């Protein structure tokens, strides 16, 4: 609903963003695509010619490939589940009347401000260290053998660190959504005799659908590229190698640009599959 004039203005004003992002996506992507078909070993003389799909075959047939996909999905999936469930519970709690609500909210959102590198360092050294970490002290206090978090439970540890970072985000969005819920609706349900639990499942949860969608979408985008947390804590050992970490190893540690680029293309494909799935599943919620 607009005039030709404003439509062309709109196209003109959308153009910078689209062109910039297109460039940001296409230029490196084209170069990555090019590299992925070449034997490109910078340390042994650079570009050593066309190799067809060799890099692609080699990347997938590597024993690390499927485990890395699995690890990626486990980390993304678990963090999503944890942050959404805890986020809803926390949002419900914070929505209740209490003293010092503002301060509590500050405490809860604080982890979101912390650099991933810093939070990984702090968790790894000061909490999860099996000798000097706080958890070790706590375990010993109860007479238990301290857990060697990052080696014996590397994935749960990573999930814990990443969930800690993203819980505030989920909580905030869900809290805003809960606060927007019409209280008359809840009162009507109460009059209709709905108990607390059924009020939650029949009224609050459907109302939160859209907010949950957004949380899932945005977090997935960021979680797929989780890197610093792994780099700092386990360095990819103990089964904590995600796809992006595997690419990092191929490109930077092995200095095999061709192989790594092929991995990059796989990652793009994976990201798009997940994106399309997300759009299918949750896209409807975004219509408005």
């Amino acid at each position, binding site marked *: 609903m607009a005039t030709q004039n404003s439509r062309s203005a709109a196209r003109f004003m959308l153009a910078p963003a689209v062109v910039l992002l297109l460039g940001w996506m296409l230029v490196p992507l084209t170069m990555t695509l090019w590299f992925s078909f070449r034997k490109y070993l910078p*340390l042994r003389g650079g570009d050593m010619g066309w190799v067809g799909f060799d890099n692609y075959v080699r990347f997938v047939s590597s*024993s*690390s490939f499927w485990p890395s996909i699995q690890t990626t999905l486990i980390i993304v999936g678990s963090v999503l589940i944890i942050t959404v469930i805890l986020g809803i519970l926390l949002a419900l709690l914070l929505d209740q009347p209490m003293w010092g609500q503002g301060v509590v909210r500050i405490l809860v959102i604080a982890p979101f401000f912390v650099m991933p590198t810093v939070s990984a360092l702090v968790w790894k050294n000061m909490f999860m260290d099996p000798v000097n970490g706080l958890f070790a002290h706590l375990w010993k206090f109860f007479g238990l053998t301290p857990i*060697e978090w990052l080696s*014996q439970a590397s994935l749960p540890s990573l999930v814990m660190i990443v969930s800690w970072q993203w819980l505030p985000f989920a909580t905030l969005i869900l809290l805003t959504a809960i606060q927007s819920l019409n209280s008359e609706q809840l009162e009507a349900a109460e009059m209709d005799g709905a108990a607390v639990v059924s009020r939650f499942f029949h009224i609050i949860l459907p109302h939160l659908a859209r907010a949950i969608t957004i949380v899932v979408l945005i977090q997935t985008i960021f979680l797929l590229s989780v890197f610093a947390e792994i780099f700092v804590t386990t360095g990819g*050992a103990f089964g904590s190698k995600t796809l992006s970490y595997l690419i990092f*190893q191929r490109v930077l*540690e092995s200095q095999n640009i061709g192989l790594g680029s092929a991995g990059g293309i796989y990652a793009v494909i994976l990201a798009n599959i997940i994106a399309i799935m997300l759009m299918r599943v949750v896209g409807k919620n975004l219509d408005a």
Partner: protein
Amino acid sequence: MKNTARALLGAVVASLMTSTAFAEKLTIATVNNGDMIRMQKYTDDFTKKTGHTVEWVTLEENVLRQRVTTDITTKGGAFDIMTIGMYETPIWGKNGWLVSMNDLSAEYNADDILPAMKGGLSYDGTMYAAPFYGESSMIMYRKDLMEKAGLKMPDAPSWSFIAKAARAMTDRSTETNGICLRGKAGWGEGGAFITAMSNSFGARWFDEKWNAQFDTREWSDTLNFFVNMMNDAGPPGFATNGFNENLSLFQQGKCGMWIDATVAASFVTNPKDSTVADKVGFALAPDNGLGKRSNWLWAWALAIPAGTKKEAAAKQFIEWATGTGYIELVAGKEGWANVPPGARTSLYKNPNYTSVPFAKMTMDSILSADPNNSTVDPSPYVGVQFAAIPEFAGIATEVSQEFSAAYAGQQTVAEALAKAQALTNEAMEAAGYR
């Protein structure tokens, strides 16, 4: 006449060159270890002497390696001087990416550099990086705990003695671990240790035809010995311990023995940071009677990327930082125990230094490591705790990750070795060696 004119012209050109070389700003990428950070404190001395200023980019080892490798392979030119090690130098030198260090000034006295260091930092007879400090590895042990256990550390112990002593010194009730060793994944961390250790067990990475050797008896002996000893006498979580973690444990008095870099000696004997400073003894890294000890050889060295416009100034810096003057500067301000070790022969002839408790053992360790002949059976590669081929870092990191998973009990030693064998051969095929 003609000659004087030419000489005059030459002088003018020379003075022009020195004046353009004057007051450069050098960007130096360096690792965040104690010696390098100490050097940053004394940068003013360099600026005072030459007029050049210095910008430091201090990064953790893994980040640094990643950062400088990206820059050198793309010829990015972000750094005028890079801190690199014995692994990178010959590979990069071979590719012509580094400026030769053969033409340093006479007063710098390049011949004073320890031959082992110079050898490791050269390719085809040309030195491509000047060692800031050099190191080998050795045993650091607690004399008091050793005595309590009723044992006496020989100067050159065997692995069986170490294992016996480690178990004897372990007291879980006081959180005293008999031995602390690196188990952390990463080729420069646990990978370096286990490779050096495997040398003394007669193992090697590759045979002469670049076939991986993890399916051999020697490797399985190495790993089983390590895992058994560490389970009995190592600290909890040793599979994630690297140099820093072990240093910290040792300084807190939680380790009976620690086999690691010789530079650590000055940290564990420094009463400011260490609770056990006056109780530390030193010995050569252990052997297994096969003629090879399990100590490595490493140097952090300064190199100049080819194509830099500030070569002259960069060389001035390298001469300042790796010359004898700097050693004296640090000795004067912070004492001889804190000077960068392992780079110069003259240091080990200096009576001031030889009185430092770990000086002799450091020197002996460095001299006992031979990068060109590190394994019992012949091998096609150069390097003690690494193989100086470009693919090694990537492969060894993944191999060490498999090992660390075995240390953590997530898989058996046999499984780890089988995976290591497969992935090494895979990568060597990809790189075209086999």
